């Protein structure tokens, strides 16, 4: 599903954010990405979402090589991804419902069908009855749920989540992680970054670790844990 081979990202000022990073994530897998802030997690997400291009190496998602992707092809790649950003990037001048409707409007869904799907997505993340609220009226955990609803409303095969549990209390963080596990249960590939290893479930799935731009993989947990990482 996602294959990175020997990816290096060097910024113009000379800093190497990623060094020879290689990994592979198969379809339906749930993978955690850990590392201190500044270890390169956000850079990796930017490369995966084609916001930035790797300096060298290749990233292939769904058989598409991102390095060879033209600007006009980028939107079609992103429509297959459910992207969650560290700063959530919600639109605060629009209602909760309009935030979730945006990806559907971009794809050009017929309005009635779009409304049904948006409502279903909000229900799935536990935010029904808040459709008419503005995001500012939501708590941190609720805002994160809204971001998830927006990311999944197009039913993407891959979810890329950058620090979805940051700045949340332990209970909210656990609830958010449960939502991701639920998506993985129905076959969605999930890559989830967190700087806080203590937020990992005890029976953890596969964990990739970034340290100063270099990647290592933590020893695999028992296979049963991958599927059953419920609380």
């Amino acid at each position, binding site marked *: 599903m996602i294959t990175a081979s020997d990816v290096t990202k060097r910024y113009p000022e000379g800093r190497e954010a990623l060094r020879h990073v290689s990994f592979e994530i198969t379809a339906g897998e749930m993978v955690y990405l850990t590392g201190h802030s500044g270890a390169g997690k956000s850079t990796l997400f930017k490369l995966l979402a084609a916001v930035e291009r790797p300096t060298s190496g290749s990233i292939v998602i769904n058989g598409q090589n991102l390095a060879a992707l033209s600007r006009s092809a980028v939107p079609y790649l992103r*429509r297959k991804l459910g992207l969650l950003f560290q700063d959530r*990037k*919600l639109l605060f001048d629009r209602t909760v419902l309009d935030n979730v409707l*945006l990806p559907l409007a*971009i794809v*050009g869904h017929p*309005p009635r069908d779009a409304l049904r799907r948006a409502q279903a997505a909000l229900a799935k993340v536990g935010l029904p009855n808040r459709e008419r609220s503005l995001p500012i009226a939501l708590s941190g955990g609720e805002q994160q749920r809204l971001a998830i609803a927006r990311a999944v409303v197009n039913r993407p095969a891959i979810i890329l989540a950058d620090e979805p549990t940051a700045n949340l209390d332990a209970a909210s963080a656990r609830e958010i992680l449960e939502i991701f596990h639920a998506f993985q249960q129905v076959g969605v590939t999930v890559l989830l970054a967190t700087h806080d290893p203590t937020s990992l479930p005890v029976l953890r799935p596969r964990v990739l670790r970034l340290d100063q731009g270099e990647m290592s993989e933590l020893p695999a947990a028992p296979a049963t844990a991958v599927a059953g990482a419920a609380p």
Partner: protein
Amino acid sequence: MSVWLAQHWAAIRDACRRLATAPLNSLLSLLVIGIALTLPAAGWLLLDNLRALTGDAPGVQQISVFLSPEAGKREIAEIEHRLQAGKIGRWRFVAREEALKRLQAAEGMADIVASLPRNPLPDAFVVTPSASQPAELERLAETFSSWPKVAHVQLDSAWVKRFDALLRLGRLIVILLGVLFAAALVTITFNTIRLQILAHAAEIEVARLIGATDAYIQRPLHYFGMLQGALGGLCAALLVAVGFHLLAPLVAELTQLYGTNFTLRGLGAGHVAFLATIGAALGWLGAWISALMHLRRFA
């Protein structure tokens, strides 16, 4: 197809919403565009009117052929014959006695004419040629002056030529003004779209990140520019109409004093539509360039 239509319809609504959410800014932009378009539009209308004015004056293209005093009946008949044979156009013989009578009839001339010892006026032909090209008229005048007993040929086209040159100059000035103010309109739109992009940067960034194509993001901006330009064009039409409404009575008075019956022609529906269309096209161009340049920074 219906998706395509729906997205365009959504973009148009979005553009209208953006215009309406900042009414003061929109109004100012419309006024600036309107004023920019008013000057060339008014100049163009003025030229239109001048052309109509000269077109309505048929006495302009006449050649007066004055005979020498010693020309007798035989020479007059000879010239009549030649005019007839040449199929030059309409012509009229003005005998010297008739010319004197007309001069006497003119206001304040009677005393002067009475004091003359004898009739100083020659016989004359007034020719209204069927040809209208200045060069052709010139050629005719030359032919006439080579005929026997013709003392003087006066081609009344000198001032026509001057006027024509003046009109052409005016047209050029209006075109230059038009180009200048068209550039101004494009620039104004360029800037308002730039500000629109700045104001909606968060929205554009998010839309781009969740899979919006450049076309999706540019569409409302293009419609915004078009709409603003079209409304600016209508604004210009309104300004021109008001100006002409104020001028019309004065012009009517002036033309009456000169003894002609001329009414100022204002803007027609076609003109208004043309102004709106031109405004929309230029607005779209400005928006297109601006969007192309300023949206590149969104990954």
